[in-house]
C-alpha cells in the first residue's frame, strides 16, 4: 500500500447527513378512485423519494396536518371529483397559515385547462392533466421539490 501523506485531523464529526425528499400524496375530497395516486406514489418511490400516502377522502385540514407532522417537502394531490378549484387553493391557504409556504404543492387529475392559470395564481405550483407520463412527474419533482437546507 502506498504511504499516505499526513492528513489534518478534521474537527467536525464524520456523521453523514442524508437528506431524503419527502412527499405527501393525498386524495382530497370525495371521489374514491386512488389508482392514479398509488401509481404516482410508486413511481416516486422508485425514483428514491420517501412517500407518505394518506389515503382517500381527505379534507384539506387533514392533509395539512399530516404534512406538518411528517415535515414533507412537497404535496401531490389527485383530484377527479371536479372540486379542485376549491380544494387545491384551500390547501395552499392552510399551509400559509401554518407558515409552511415552502412546501411545494402540485396536483393532477381531471382538471380543465381553463382552470389551470387560476390554480397557479392561487399558489399551486404545477397541474398535471391526463396523458402526463410518469417520467414527467418524476422529473418535475426532482427539479422543483428540494429538501429543506
Amino acid at each position, binding site marked *: 500500500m502506498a504511504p499516505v501523506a499526513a492528513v489534518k485531523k*478534521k474537527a467536525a464529526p464524520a456523521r453523514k447527513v442524508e437528506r431524503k425528499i419527502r412527499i405527501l400524496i393525498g386524495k382530497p375530497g370525495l371521489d374514491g378512485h386512488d389508482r392514479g395516486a398509488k401509481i404516482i406514489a410508486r413511481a416516486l418511490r422508485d425514483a428514491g423519494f420517501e412517500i407518505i400516502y394518506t389515503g382517500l377522502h381527505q379534507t384539506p385540514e387533514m392533509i395539512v396536518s399530516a404534512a406538518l407532522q411528517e415535515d414533507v417537502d412537497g404535496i401531490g394531490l389527485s383530484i377527479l371529483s371536479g372540486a379542485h378549484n376549491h380544494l387545491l387553493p384551500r390547501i395552499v391557504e392552510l399551509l400559509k397559515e401554518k407558515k409552511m409556504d415552502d412546501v411545494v404543492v402540485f396536483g393532477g387529475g381531471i382538471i380543465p385547462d381553463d382552470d389551470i392559470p387560476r390554480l397557479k395564481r392561487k399558489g399551486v405550483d404545477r397541474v398535471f392533466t391526463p396523458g402526463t407520463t410518469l417520467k414527467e412527474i418524476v422529473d418535475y419533482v426532482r427539479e422543483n421539490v428540494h429538501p429543506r437546507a
Partner: protein
Amino acid sequence: MTKAVVDSVRAGDLRAAARLMRDLDDGVPAAQRSLRQLYKHTGRSFILGITGAPGAGKSTLVDAIVGEFRAIGKTVGVVAIDPTSPYSGGAILGDRIRMQRHYLDDGVFIKSLATRGHLGGLSRSTIDVVNVMDAMGKDVVIIETVGVGQDEVEIVKVAHTNLVVVVPGLGDDIQAIKAGILEIADIFVVNKADREGADRTRRDLETMVSLNDYEEGEWVPPVMPTEAVSGKGVGELVEMIDSHREHVFIDDNLELFRREKATVELFEMLKTRLLEEAVGDLERHGLLDGLISDIAARRKDPYSIVEKLVNHSFAANLIG
C-alpha cells in the same frame, strides 16, 4: 439555536418537533445537539411496541388502541416504520392510511419513518424520534415496527410493553412465531379473531407459553383476541396493556428496564458512530478502497485490520 428548538418542542410547537424528528432521521448534527438538551426531559412516556408479520393488522390495531387511550384523555405519539426499497432507496409510508380519524386530533402526533437500510424492525432514528415525543410530553408513545416478523428484537429494549400480533391462517402457526418473536411478547394478540382457525392459533400460543418456566411474580404473556377493524376486544387489550404497565412500573422491574434501555441506547449509538467515524477517517485518508480490495483479494485479512483500527483505550476520554 439549540436552546430555541428545545424550548419550542417542550412548549408544544408541533412544527418544531416535526422538523427536529426529520433532522434526526436525516442525521443532521445540530439536531443531535438539540437531543442532548432534550434527553433530560425524557423517560416519562409509556412506550408500547407493536410487531408482527405484514398484513397482521398492526396499523389498524394501532388506530384502535390510540382511540382507547384518547377516550381516557391520554395524549399519544405514534412512530410507524415501513421498509425502504433496497433498489431505489425510496419508500412508501402508508401506515397513516389506517389512522385517518386521528389526523385532526391535537392529542395525537403520527410520524412515519423509513428503515433506510437499518435491520431489526426499527429505523436508525427510532429511538431519537421516540425521545422527542417523550420530551413533547406524550403520555403514550406507540412504535409500530416494519413487520418482517422474525428478527425484531430491537423493539424489546425500547418499549415498556411489547405486543406481538398474529393472525390465524398464515400457514404453520408455530412458524409465524419463531423463537425471537415469541420471546419478545409481553402480550400476544390474535387479530382478525373472527377468522377460521383463530381458536386454534390462540390455543397453540397458550400451549407454547405454558411450556416456559415462570418464576413467582414473573409476567406470563396472555393471549388476547381482537378484531381491530370493528374494535372488538381492543378495550380488553388496552386493560391488559395497563396491567403489564403496572407490572413493569413496580420499582425493581422499572430499574431493570431503565438499565436495559440505557444499555441499548448507548450500544446502538456507539455502533453507529464508531462505524461512521472509522469509515469516514479511512475515506479521508484515501485508504478505504485499497483495504477493501486487499481483503477481497485475500492479501489482507479483516480480523487484523479491525484489531489495529480499534486499538484504543475508549474509556480514557471519560476518565479524569
